[in-house]
C-alpha cells in the first residue's frame, strides 16, 4: 500500500512544478486532470480493505467532477475567451519553479511537528497537501489572466482536499457531494464572469481591472 501512496504523492508534487513552469493554459489543464486522478486515488490507497462503501461512491464522483467536468469547463472558457497562454506573469516561470522549491522545503519544515497526526503510511501527504495549497496561492497572486487564477484556485482546493485525506477526515457523503458541487458551480460562475469580462474589455488580464480603489 505505502509504496503506491508515496508514488501518488510524489506525482502530486511534480504536477505542481508543471503548473508553475508552463505558460500554456492547455498544458496546465492537462496537469489538473493528472492531479485530480492522483487525488481521487490517494484515499483508496490509504483506506483499509475492504473499502468502505462511501469511499467507493466518492472516488468516481471526485474523479468525474475534478478530472472531467472541471477541465471541460476550463477548456471551454479558454476557447471562448480566446486565450492560449499566460503572458508575462508577475513572477517569471523559472522564478516560479525556484519559488516552488523553497515552498516545498517550507512545507516539509512546517508539517514536521505534525507528522504524528498524519495517517500511518502517509508521511509525505501532509507536506504534499500544504505544498499544493501554497502553489495554488502562488499561482493566484503571480499570474495575470483570470483563467490562470481559476486554475490556481483549483490547485489550492486540491491541496485542501489532500489535507482532508491526510487527516483521514470522514465527512458524511452528503457534505462531500455538496463540496464537489460547490467547486463545480464556482468554476462555472467564474467561467461566465470571465466570458463577460472578455467581451467587455477584450482581455482577461486581472491586473488591468484596477479602476475600483480608494
Amino acid at each position: 500500500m505505502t509504496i503506491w501512496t508515496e508514488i501518488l504523492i510524489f506525482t502530486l508534487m511534480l504536477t505542481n512544478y508543471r503548473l508553475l513552469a508552463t505558460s500554456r493554459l492547455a498544458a496546465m489543464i492537462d496537469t489538473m486532470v493528472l492531479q485530480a486522478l492522483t487525488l481521487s486515488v490517494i484515499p483508496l490507497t490509504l483506506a483499509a480493505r475492504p473499502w468502505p462503501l462511501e469511499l467507493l461512491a466518492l472516488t468516481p464522483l471526485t474523479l468525474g467532477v475534478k478530472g472531467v467536468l472541471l477541465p471541460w469547463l476550463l477548456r471551454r472558457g479558454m476557447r471562448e475567451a480566446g486565450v492560449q497562454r499566460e503572458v508575462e506573469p508577475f513572477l517569471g516561470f523559472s522564478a516560479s519553479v525556484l519559488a516552488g522549491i523553497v515552498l516545498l522545503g517550507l512545507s516539509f519544515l512546517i508539517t514536521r511537528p505534525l507528522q504524528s497526526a498524519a495517517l500511518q503510511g502517509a508521511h509525505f501527504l501532509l507536506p504534499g497537501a500544504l505544498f499544493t495549497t501554497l502553489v495554488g496561492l502562488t499561482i493566484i497572486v503571480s499570474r495575470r489572466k483570470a483563467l490562470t487564477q481559476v486554475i490556481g484556485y483549483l490547485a489550492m482546493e486540491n491541496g485542501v482536499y489532500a489535507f482532508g485525506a491526510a487527516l483521514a477526515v470522514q465527512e458524511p457523503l452528503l457534505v462531500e457531494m455538496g463540496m464537489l458541487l460547490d467547486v463545480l458551480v464556482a468554476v462555472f460562475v467564474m467561467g461566465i464572469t470571465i466570458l463577460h469580462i472578455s467581451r467587455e474589455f477584450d482581455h482577461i488580464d486581472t491586473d488591468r481591472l484596477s479602476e475600483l480603489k480608494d
Partner: protein
Amino acid sequence: MLIWTVLIPALLGLLAMVVPGRRLRRALLGLGSAGHAGLVARIALHRAPMPAGAWIGLDAAGLLFLCIASVLFIAVSIYTLGYLGRESGRTVRDAEEGFLIANEPEAIFIGCLLLFLATMSLVCISRDMGLLWVAVEATTLVSAPLISYHRHHRSLEATWKYLLICSVGIALALLGNFFLAFAGRAGHAPLHLDSLTAGAAALDPVWLKAAFIMFLVGYGTKMGLVPMHTWLPDAHSEAPSMVSALLSGALLNCAFLGILRSHAVLTAAGLGAFSGELLIFFGLLSMGTAAVFLIRQRDYKRMLAYSSIEHMGILSLGIGLGGLAATGAMLHALNHSLTKGLLFLTAGQILYFYGTKSADEVQCALKRTPLTGFLWLMGFFAIAGCPPFGLFVSELTILKGAIDAGRWAVGSCFLLVLAVIFVAMARTVLPMVFGYPAKEAVPSQDSLPATAPPWFIGPAVAMSTCILTLGLYIPSFVWRLVSKAALLSGGVR
C-alpha cells in the same frame, strides 16, 4: 418543516429561471419572499425542540439571523419589483459615466435572488460545520451574478474580486473544518455542533486553535474583517442598491454566524479566552481601518460599505468580550441589518435622483426630494449610533459589557473610533442633505417627481420605524432571543 425555508425559495428560484413571462417571474419573487417570511414566522412562534444530531435545527442565533434575512428580503423584494419595472428589458444609461448598458436577463436576476435567500437560510439552520461550509460557499456563488446586474466594466471588476477573494477565503475555512474534525477525531460525527460542544473537553486544543484561526481567516474574509475586506467596498458600491442591502444586512451576518459557531465550540472547550482575544483584536482593527477610509470618503455607497466593515468589527468585538457585550452584539446585528437596509435602499433613490455616486455632487436633498432626504439623514444618525435609535442602545450595551469585564482600554478605543466615524460620516452626509439648490444647476433629472413611488420609499419607511422602535423600546421576546443567542459565546442570562 424547517427544510422548507430552504426549499421554497430554492424551487421558486429555479422556476423563475425557466418560466416565460415577466409578470409570472415577478409574482414568483413576491411569492417566495412572502412564503419564506410566513414560514419563518410560523416556525418562530411554534418552536419545536431541536432533535439531537439532526443536520438542520434552529437555535436562538440561527433563528435571529433567519428572521433578519427574511425581513430584509421582503423589503428588498418590494423594492426590486419597482426597480425591475424601471430598469428591466431595456438599455439604461449608466448612472456614473453615462454610457449605455444592457442589463442582465431578469430571469437570472430574480432566480439568483431567490436562490440567495435559500442558501442564506441554509446557513442559518445548519447544525453541521460541513453543511454550514457548503452553504456559505453557495451564498457566494449565487450572489455573484447579482452584483453584475448592470453589466459594465466596474461591476464586472467587482464581481471578479468578490468571487476570487471569497472563494479562496472559504477554501481556507474548509481547511478549518478538517482541522476541527481532526481535533475531535475520538468522537463520532466530528463536525456536528451537538457532538462538538458535548465532547468539547476531549478536543485536541492545538488543532482546535488552528481550526479557529482558519475559520477566522476564511469566514472573516466573507464577513469583511480587515485585512481580508478588500472585496467588500467594491462589491457593495457596484451592485444595485437592494443587492447591497442584502449583502450587507444578511450575507455578512451569515459569515458572522460561521465565526460565532466556531467561537462557541472553543468557548465550550475552555479556549474562549484565546478566540475572544483574536476576535477583539480583529474587531478593533476593522473598526479603526474603516474609520481611516471613512475620512474623506466621497463616494456615498462606498461610505456605507466601509460602515459595514466597521459594524462587523463591532460584532466581532462584542462576542469576543462575551458577557453583556455578547448580548449587545446580537442586538447590534439586528439593528445594523435594518439600518443598513434602510440606508442602501435610500442611497439607491439618491443615486436615481442625482445620477451620481459622488457625495460632492449631491446637494440639498431635503429640498429636492424631502422624504428621501429625511430618510437618509435619519439613517445616518441611526448608523452613527445616536439616540434614540436602536444602534445607540446596542453600542451602549457593548460598551457597558466592556467596562463590566474590566476592559477599559478596549472600551475607550471603541468609543474613540465611534467618535471619529461619526465626524467623518457627518462631513459626507450633512452637506448632501442640507442647503438650497443653486439656480444654475438644472440637471436632467429635474423632470423626476420629488417623491419616489411607494415601492421604493415604503420599505425604507418601514425599516426606519423598526429601528426607531428598537431604540425606544425593546420587546421582551427580542431581548430573550438575543440573550439566548449570546449564550453561545458566553453571554449572561
